């Protein structure tokens, strides 16, 4: 394997008496799409701000493109594209003005930026909005513009912090499609998310983060295989009965999680398990058999759901 573009060892960030990031290690290879999955407050955004060469760290080492981002901030940032969690566009300026001034911050020539803007407007599907003031755009359009802005300098690494949080399903799918294209073009992506489906769709490899620490690392499929069963049977008996039947049901499967509204039963064959339950004269009000997901991995690792 060639030298990683990003290399993080023992990274720690402390705010006052709160430890946001507690000694994490990971590498990101060139062309890889790397995800940080975790609930709100896991330390994802703090990690991203350190990777973006803007925030300082308390301890540990970080190397991005062979440089320490704390010592060579401007030099490192020259090769990064950053998409923050909250769109921080200039609402008073138009779509193309936003792209233009951002390109100038990288010292790029006017001709280069002008040509680049055309390419990016097409990529972000904002060609017809080029002269519209940014504050008049929809949430999905702003998001796409923020991503386009992050690409104006043709970065080696694109950092995306919760790229689709707050978007409706349709806008999310458009965005995933755009990010997938970048991935195909070989752009190295680092993204944080608390959506397991997003992580599964976009990440080649990911770490599961909780309370500032990395709980597990691997490919989405690998993590599911390692930490969960093939299938999950979700059953509901009504909120009061769930607890009553739980001890009996837990004997029937490999592992069970009791959530406030439902029971998750981990098994290799969900249909067969459901038949057994029915045969035992327990009749759930609803039941659902599905494949295991990263949500189950997270539940297994932390005992909590991703979105609380």
């Amino acid at each position, binding site marked *: 394997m060639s030298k990683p573009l990003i290399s993080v060892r023992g990274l720690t960030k402390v705010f006052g008496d709160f430890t946001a990031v507690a000694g994490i290690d990971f590498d990101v290879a060139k062309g890889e799409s790397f995800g940080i999955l975790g609930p709100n407050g896991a330390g994802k955004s703090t990690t991203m701000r350190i990777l973006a060469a803007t*925030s300082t760290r308390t301890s540990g080492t970080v190397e991005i493109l062979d440089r320490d981002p704390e010592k060579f901030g401007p030099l490192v940032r020259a090769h990064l594209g950053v998409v923050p969690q909250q769109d921080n566009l200039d609402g008073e300026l138009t779509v193309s003005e936003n792209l233009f001034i951002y390109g*100038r*911050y990288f010292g790029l020539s006017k001709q280069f930026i002008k040509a680049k803007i055309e390419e990016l407007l097409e990529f972000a599907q904002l060609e017809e909005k080029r002269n519209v003031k940014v504050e008049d755009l929809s949430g999905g359009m702003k998001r796409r513009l923020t991503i386009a802005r992050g690409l104006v300098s043709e*970065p080696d690494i694109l950092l995306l912090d919760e790229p689709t949080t707050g978007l409706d399903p349709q806008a999310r799918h458009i965005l995933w499609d755009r990010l997938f294209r970048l991935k195909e073009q070989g752009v190295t992506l680092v993204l944080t998310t608390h959506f397991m489906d997003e992580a599964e769709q976009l990440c080649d490899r990911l770490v599961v983060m909780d309370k500032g620490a990395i709980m597990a690392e691997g490919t989405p499929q690998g993590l599911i295989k390692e930490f969960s069963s093939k299938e999950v049977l979700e059953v509901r008996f009504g909120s009061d009965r769930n607890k009553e039947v739980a001890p009996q049901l837990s004997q029937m499967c490999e592992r069970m999680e009791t959530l406030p509204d439902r029971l998750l039963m981990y098994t290799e064959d969900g249909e067969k398990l459901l038949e057994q339950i029915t045969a035992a004269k327990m009749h759930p009000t609803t039941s659902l058999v599905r494949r295991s997901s990263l949500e189950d991995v997270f539940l297994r690792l932390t005992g909590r759901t991703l979105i609380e």
Partner: protein
Amino acid sequence: MNTGIDVPQIQRFGALYIASARLKSISKWKGIIAAVDIGNPLFYLIAVGVGIGVLVEQGSGTSGTNGIKYIAFIAPALLANSAIAGVMDETIFPTIEGFKWRKLFFAQNATPITGRQIALGVYLSALCRAIFSVSIYYALLLAFNVVEFGPSILLIPIAVLGGGGFGAIILFAAARIEKVDQFFNILGRLVIMPMFLFSGTFFPLSSMPIYLQPIGWISPLWHATELGREAAFDYGVSNLMIAVHLTFLTSLVVIGLTLAMRQFERRLAK
């Protein structure tokens, strides 16, 4: 790797990139800014020139103002005050917006641009706004025959220096604000208003009781006003005092800007 990115050049000119982006945003408000910058002086020139000035001169002639017409006496102060108002508009709002509302500074800082350059860029664009406001004001003073064209043109750089001195401190203060709510109330009512009233604006500072005069001594408005009166009318300010005024205002610029640049850098690196 994009080879068109020239980091050393960004390190030299980053503040200018920020300033030019700020000017682009400011120019979106050109209609309102022009209306304010023309309307405000007009109101003062009419109210004071026709109303209050006549009353003052009927009462005591020009004995209290070193023989200068009342409207001319207060003109340098109004000019400096206009610079202060312009610089305040273009430092406080962009700074709060940059750190809190739209978080634009974080976007700018995600590029090779540094926090120090952002602070300097915002400041430079605010000075441009002050030059614009003050130039219009000066043109109106000429049109209303309040001052004669000549050395009085120095009123423009003097007013901008006054605005710049105050603006540098305000830039630093705005970069420190975490809670916005009370800031405007306190600033407007407890800083700007007393500064406007007690800086020798409407009457010479020396005609105030000595215990109130320190308000003027620490006020950039007073220092700029005194310099302006001397430049426009040979008001009788000693060379020593000219040096004091210039040193005071320049120090504000240097100290305020140094603190502001450091504060921007620290806050963005959190």
